[in-house]
């Protein structure tokens, strides 16, 4: 039973990257075991048509045995032969218009949390059954059953209620015991006390043929509180799995060259001085110096630079960069703990240590409430002992009534109901809330800091004014670009395809790693690639160059803004937020984007430590910062911010460090998140006021000894229902 810590949360790792590495290893082991199972996340699935198109498309793939969509969790689980890869299925779904991401098939952990959830739900069901039956009998007593009939009804109620309280109350008893043992007065102590006191005093009263028995109250208490506990558990189960959920795409392995033989090794077993082979498309596992090969590397996740950088013999590379065009052999200068990836993780640890632990509204309320309830109940007991001259039975009856009425039924529901309702709303919009208090923190935000590459932009270049170039040039460039996997070449080919350009007939196309592509067109050599290689004068923008019959053309690119980025920025500004753009990229593209989105406050060439420092500076000035970023260079800032959001395409470390993950490509939900966060914080406070209001009316009644079981039942059910309805009002 993990409900030991009453309002506890999923543990936060002090160093996200450290948390990722063992997770990734575990995933790798898991994959080897049951390679027939693939889980994909479908952030955009929402209707019956989505279900049938996804299932039909996947079932049509040879090797797929079954595909089943779970719309509630927006994922599809696929049983398939081991040669079917997730990447291929994602492409199949993309052709159907469904965005999909690979998920960690960490089935072991999901079934484990499911088992706990089911266990709680079972207790809820049992408590509900008993509540209904006991209530049926209680209504008869309230409406005037007398003597033997009343006693009989009380005995039957006892027979139903006692086993129920013992079975359904276990989560509370266990956690109350755990908190008492460490000398704390948790929320579950008064709850357990009320359950035990209410049941035992009712048994005693029944034995003595008394008029009042609280069996219905005990069972109802158990039901409402379990319901709140279950909602809380569900939110936290999502939070716990979220980090594991989005697959750790890079398994920490590298290809090492030992005397010219390629050997697969885990990164922890690599030493400085080893030779590592990095294929095109792979991520650098270590820091090192290139000793063979030429290529271009994408540093955007580390630094935010959108333009790939040339790498050849002697170039220094760091862990985390992506090799783009040609194979590279790297001599390791630092691996593991000494690598730049790890230094970045240390930075995160420092930022997280400095982050003040946020106490949630529920925690603060519980801290006030718990002692108050005990004091009230005990002083009622003391007073009536004195006033009646030692009538123990009467005094205990009163203090039990006080405990039952003050018991935080509505309080236990007030926050979980709002959080469940809000995270459900946001999940439907494509946002995954990883952290229980993220919504409350989101409500306080007044400054938003964005990263550029990969966050406000997709990190995908698109050609600017392609058709302004001569038709020949475009046709040749597109033909050359079609053969390359370089991001700029792919963007150029894609742009030409959408403009319906007829490809020129270029023969002998060959890619020169690190430089570009060349071929023969109408008997002359044509080249597409870097400026110096094509003999062109470089322009001050992201560009690729074409040398064609003695002339050169520069194709410029701009990074495509994420869909909804302009809407999100405009809506946040309308909500009164201060918006900043911090990017590691060079000034020209940053300025272009800032102007396009209307962000006045931008900085370019910002180092990772400077980003975190800027966030810390804003926090020190009393601002509550929302950081939105995706790269490793943002991780420290994400951890330092009051609350943080990262897209699903972000690096693992960034996703782990952030509180909310944006599942889809569209960015517009971020503005909704802030709005819903503010609304839900307001609803939580309203709920506290409502349940407090019921107590203000009912507690004095109980204290003077006028509370009947009927009054307790009314107060309890009315306040619980009102707070749940209030939580549903979220729009």
């Amino acid at each position, binding site marked *: 039973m993990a409900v030991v810590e009453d309002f506890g949360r999923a543990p936060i790792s002090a160093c996200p990257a450290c948390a990722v590495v063992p997770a990734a290893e575990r995933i790798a082991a898991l994959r080897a075991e049951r390679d027939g199972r693939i889980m994909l996340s479908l952030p955009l699935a929402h*209707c*019956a*048509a989505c*279900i*049938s198109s996804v299932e*039909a498309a996947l079932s049509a793939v040879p090797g797929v045995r079954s595909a089943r*969509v*779970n*719309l*509630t*969790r927006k994922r599809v689980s696929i049983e398939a032969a081991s040669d079917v890869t997730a990447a291929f299925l994602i492409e199949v779904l993309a052709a159907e218009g469904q965005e999909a991401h690979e998920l960690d098939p960490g089935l072991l952990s999901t079934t484990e949390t499911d088992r706990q959830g*089911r266990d709680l*739900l*079972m207790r809820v*069901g*049992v408590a509900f*059954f008993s509540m*209904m*039956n006991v209530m*049926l009998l209680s209504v008869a007593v309230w409406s005037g059953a007398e003597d033997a*009939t009343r006693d009989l009804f009380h005995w*039957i109620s006892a027979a*139903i209620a006692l086993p129920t309280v013992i079975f359904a109350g276990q989560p509370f008893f266990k956690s109350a015991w755990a908190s008492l043992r460490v000398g704390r007065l948790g929320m579950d102590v008064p709850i357990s006390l009320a359950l035990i006191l209410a049941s035992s005093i009712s048994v005693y009263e029944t034995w003595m043929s008394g008029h009042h028995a609280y069996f219905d109250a005990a069972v109802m208490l158990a039901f409402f509180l379990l319901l709140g506990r279950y909602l809380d558990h569900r939110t936290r189960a999502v939070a716990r799995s979220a980090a594991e959920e989005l697959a750790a795409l890079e398994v920490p392995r590298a290809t090492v060259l030992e005397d010219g033989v390629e050997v697969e090794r885990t990164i922890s077993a690599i030493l400085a001085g080893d030779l590592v082979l990095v294929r095109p498309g792979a991520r650098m596992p270590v820091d090192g110096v290139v000793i063979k090969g030429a290529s271009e590397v994408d540093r955007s996740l580390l630094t935010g630079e959108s333009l790939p950088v040339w790498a050849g013999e002697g170039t220094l590379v760091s862990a985390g960069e992506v090799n783009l065009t040609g194979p590279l052999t790297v001599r390791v200068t630092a691996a593991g703990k000494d690598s730049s990836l790890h230094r970045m993780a240390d930075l995160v640890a420092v930022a997280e240590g400095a982050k003040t632990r946020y106490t949630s509204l529920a925690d603060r309320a519980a801290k006030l409430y718990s002692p108050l309830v005990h004091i009230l109940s005990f002083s009622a007991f003391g007073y009536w002992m004195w006033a009646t001259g030692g009538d123990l039975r009467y005094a205990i009856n009163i203090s039990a009534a006080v405990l039952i009425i003050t018991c935080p039924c509505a309080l236990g529901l007030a926050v979980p109901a709002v959080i469940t309702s809000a995270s459900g709303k946001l999940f439907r919009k494509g946002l995954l809330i990883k952290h229980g208090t993220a919504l409350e923190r989101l409500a306080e935000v007044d400054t938003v800091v964005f990263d550029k590459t990969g966050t406000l932009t997709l990190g995908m270049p698109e050609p600017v004014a392609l058709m302004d170039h001569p038709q020949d040039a475009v046709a040749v460039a597109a033909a050359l670009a079609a053969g390359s996997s370089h991001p700029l070449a792919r963007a150029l080919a894609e742009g030409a395809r959408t403009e319906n350009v007829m490809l020129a007939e270029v023969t002998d196309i060959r890619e020169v790693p690190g430089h570009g592509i060349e071929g023969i067109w109408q008997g002359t050599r044509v080249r597409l690639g870097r400026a110096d290689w094509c003999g062109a004068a470089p322009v001050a923008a992201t560009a690729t160059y074409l040398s064609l019959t003695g002339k050169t053309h520069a194709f410029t690119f701009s990074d495509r803004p994420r869909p909804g980025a302009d809407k999100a920025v405009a809506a946040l500004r309308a909500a009164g937020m201060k918006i900043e753009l911090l990017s590691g990229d060079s000034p020209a593209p940053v300025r272009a984007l800032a102007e396009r989105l209307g962000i006045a406050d931008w900085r370019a060439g910002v180092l990772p430590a400077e980003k975190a420092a800027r966030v810390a500076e804003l926090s020190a000035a009393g601002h509550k910062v929302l950081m939105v970023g995706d790269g490793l260079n943002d991780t420290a800032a994400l951890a330092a911010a009051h609350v943080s959001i990262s897209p699903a395409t972000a690096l693992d470390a960034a996703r782990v460090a952030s509180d909310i993950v944006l599942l889809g490509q569209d960015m517009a939900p971020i503005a909704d998140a802030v709005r819903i966060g503010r609304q839900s914080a307001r609803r939580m406070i309203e709920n506290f006021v409502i349940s407090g209001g019921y107590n203000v009316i009912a507690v004095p009644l109980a204290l003077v000894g006028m509370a009947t079981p009927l009054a307790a039942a009314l107060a309890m059910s009315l306040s619980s229902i009102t707070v749940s309805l209030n939580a549903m009002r979220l729009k």
Partner: protein
Amino acid sequence: MEILVILIPVSLLLGGIGLAAFFWAMRTKQFDDPDGDAQRILTKDWDDRPKP
């Protein structure tokens, strides 16, 4: 009031049947995808013949 001898066991029995049905539904994972199940009845996929 003699009718109570019958009515109380009957009401408990009916409640017990409900509880048993709930246990069955939990055990067979009927609550795993409420949204999906709500949508699935709208698809026309297996309208003409049952799913093999």
